């Protein structure tokens, strides 16, 4: 394990009852890296991502975050989750709160920031994604693309060390996909460590440092975007790419 490893996964298995979803995954994510996870639906990519912050409890195996095994019983997962931002397919903004409240709730309650400080950070983040004028709006007043951009900055407001994206553009109307990917691209350029489950091959090609191709609960192929799209080695990868490209 090199010193710049942020997350290390060892022999990760996950079953839902009889159904084996993950069948032994070993993987490392380094600081500043953008790892894109692709694969057919039902291949276990989302489950893999959700195991990283223990939203799904692994059946067996270990998840190390900054050298600490998160699957150990005595670990306070809440404090580690503060450093792992997550963005969901369906945004999951808190509907009863304004945008500003959505973004400042966790920093105020968990990081013990003052209201003024938290709101200042939130406003800076909102300007970064071009939504500063919507601070007092409620989620129901926003478009899908705007909601997802808010969801991203809500996670960023906690100053996480890694951002996990679970199909962030899959629930969006096509014309709104671009604005969200743009935000994610900027985030990648700023040096954020990212793990992204997506079907956006353009994004994978352009922004990804490494691509993991998952199928049937294991990582079938792992390579650079260039290799992956131009010279796929695995037969399943070739089939997958022939279907979507």
């Amino acid at each position, binding site marked *: 394990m090199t010193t710049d490893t942020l997350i290390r996964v060892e022999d990760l298995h996950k079953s839902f009852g009889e159904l084996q979803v993950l069948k032994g995954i070993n993987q490392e994510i380094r600081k500043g890296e953008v790892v894109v996870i692709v694969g057919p639906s039902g291949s276990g990519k989302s489950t893999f991502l959700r195991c990283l*912050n223990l*939203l799904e409890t692994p059946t067996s195996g270990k998840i190390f975050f900054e050298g600490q095994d998160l699957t150990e019983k005595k670990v306070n997962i*809440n*404090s*580690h*989750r*503060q450093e*792992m*931002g*997550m963005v*969901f397919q*369906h945004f*999951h*903004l*808190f*509907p*009863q*709160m*304004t945008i500003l409240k959505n973004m400042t*709730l*966790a920093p105020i*309650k*968990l990081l013990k920031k003052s209201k003024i400080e938290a709101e200042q950070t939130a406003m800076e983040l909102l300007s970064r994604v071009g939504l500063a004028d919507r601070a007092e709006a*409620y*989620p*129901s*007043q926003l478009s899908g693309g705007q909601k997802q951009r808010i969801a991203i900055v*809500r*996670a960023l407001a*906690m100053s996480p060390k890694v951002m996990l994206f679970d199909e962030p553009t899959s629930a969006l109307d096509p014309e709104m996909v671009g604005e969200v990917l743009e935000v994610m691209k900027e985030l990648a350029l700023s040096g954020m460590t990212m793990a992204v489950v997506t079907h956006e091959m353009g994004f994978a090609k352009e922004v990804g440092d490494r691509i993991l191709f998952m199928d049937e609960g294991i990582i079938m192929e792992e390579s650079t975007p260039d290799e992956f799209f131009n010279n796929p080695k695995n037969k399943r990868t070739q089939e997958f790419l022939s279907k979507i490209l």
Partner: protein
Amino acid sequence: MRDTGYSKKLIPILIAVVSLALIFSFVMPAFAESTTVAAVEDEGFLGEIKTFFVDIWKDIDRVLLKNNNYKHITNGLLITLEITFFALLIGLFLGFAVAIVRSTHDKTGKMKLLNKICQLYLTVIRGTPVIVQLLVIYYLWLGKAGVHENTAAIIAFGLNSGAYVAEIMRSGIMSIDKGQFEAGRSLGFSYFHTMLYIILPQAFKNVLPALANEFIVLLKETSVASFIAVKDMMKGANALVGSTYNMNVPYLTVALIYLVLVLGLQKLVSLLERRLRNSDH
């Protein structure tokens, strides 16, 4: 908002209807009495109406106003309000706690023992009439321990209401999208804090009409407290019936007061609902 004008009109209309009903209910007996008085015929129809109102006034005067009789009812009203208010607080607290235990068990399978205890509580409370609970709690338990009957009533109605609030709140919690939980947890909130800051406010808003209904039921149900000698409004009315041999005035007065209280409660709830609807557009 659309229903503002509607509810503004609705309340005075209802009060007018009730007042008319109140007056009308005096008509039959008063009419029957007045026609037996021969003198009325000399004054014709107007005289009949006059006699009719005079009779009503005489009844009200005799039953409610003489000897400060109305104090039986107004003092009782204060006790009714006191019991309702504190029982409501207990019911809300208990209900929220039980709902959290039950839905946590449903979601995660944890808290097995607590869940069993809560289920037992719900089964007993929902399976027996409130008046039986009141009598058991007072005569078999708190009364023997020397607890004041008002306190006993508060505890009995609080325990009773808690069971209904619990199931209402549980349905509210279960109606919230699982993603809201995950979003809260992924930010680093504990299970409990996710509940408190994110889930419960949404659940509360969703079940507010059902909760309001429960509070209305509670307010009216406290009228059986007189069974354990609580001097509530109903007891006051019964006392007046006993001392004046008039049933119309005391019972209809109490009916009117309950109705006005419920209307007031509805008004408060609709104000609260409107406030909570801020986030819907």
